[in-house]
């Protein structure tokens, strides 16, 4: 899968939160399955992504956005709506 700007930024943030190299985060990465991606790390990830993309994630979305693919789709929409 070709990275776009959004997925690159996501990898960067996730790498920092999960303390791993960004290129080890696969499109299939998801909560409870990826190393260090537990519930507490997910909250930290959400807060870090809010800062990175300058937007607030609703609680309902927070529990839905638990895979790299879903996060990419969500923040691609956010970036698109800001253009």
């Amino acid at each position, binding site marked *: 899968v070709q990275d776009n700007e959004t997925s690159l930024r996501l990898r960067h943030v996730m790498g920092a939160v999960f303390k791993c190299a960004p290129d080890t985060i696969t499109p299939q990465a998801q*909560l409870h399955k990826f190393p260090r991606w537990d*519930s507490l790390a997910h909250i930290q990830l959400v807060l870090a992504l809010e800062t990175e993309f300058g937007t607030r994630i609703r*609680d*309902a979305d*927070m*529990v*839905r956005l*638990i895979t790299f693919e879903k996060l990419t789709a969500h923040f691609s929409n956010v970036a698109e709506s800001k253009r």
Partner: protein
Amino acid sequence: MSAYVTLQVPQINANDVEVRIVEWRVDDGHKVAQGEVIAVVESSKASTDVEAPSAGFIRHNAAAGEDAKVGAALAFLAQTVEALPRRQAAIADSVKATAKARELAQAHHIDLATLNKTGIVTESDIYQAIAQRQAAAPSANAAVTAARVPLSAIQISVRRAVEQSSREMAPAYLLGAADVTDALQQLEAMTEQDGALVTLTDLLIHVVARALLEFPRLNARLVGDQIEQYGSINIGVTAEVGGDLYAIVIADADKLTVAQIAEKRTGYVMQLFRRQGLSNEALRGGTFTVTVLQQPAVLHQVPIVFPEQAAIFGIGAVQEALSRDAAGQIVTRKTLGLTISYDHRFVNGNYAATFLQAVATTLAGFRAGH
């Protein structure tokens, strides 16, 4: 009409008597714009910004780091520097102090008048004076102090609770383990299906709360020679955010599903991370506590029982262990270290052990929808 406006120390939570002035954002005598944050104050539960109600010049009436009584004059605001009043000395004829501060000062032979405190002397002031006296005294320890870091208001609350527990309780401990292989799979499925961030912590709260229905002596406190059983099951769960320890309370946890507990707890934790503070409902009234430490090296923890409670339940990190299945094959299972610390003055070992067994059995057999 006065040429200046008095800005009062705000009340952050309903029960606050005092708040701490964390920092001044505007220097004394400097100009501020309307709505500009001039100071940050914090209570034992939250912090808040104090904004200038109009443009003008600011006179501080207390120093950063001081505790100030709610409603007292925090600062003055005037249209010109010349119109600002001088800082008001709050020390009256006799030193004002809280009852606990007086008690502590007496125990440590500290003269309140020597503290030169502006405002009400609190326990923090006494502890500070004790620390200063210790620092001034020659020490047998040759190590040089590199820094002195004041405790936050929240950590001071923790210190008080721990000290009270150490003074009043006679704790005993039981260590056990539960097979959570199946439960973890169920939780992952629930997270995806139910739209709630369901974790082992939430499951533990659920299981413990339901088990307490059968073990009322563990949902109680000792008052003199009487056991007072609580009328509801409110589970406190510890959470460390920004270096401070909180005990978030899930009220009536025995009446909630795991997903409902997860939704509530996650919401509270998000509020803490966003520094929004928590309501009294979220921090008061715990009748039993669970605590979770999941760093991989932690097999068990031995927590301290909270004051006014009978016991606390702790878990460590999930570990992998080899086991034999029904067919005799060696399989890898996931296990969880369990600990119950209980007040042995009124909870006996067999009672606590039966409770621990009940929790372990329920965790091992957990099925979603129960």
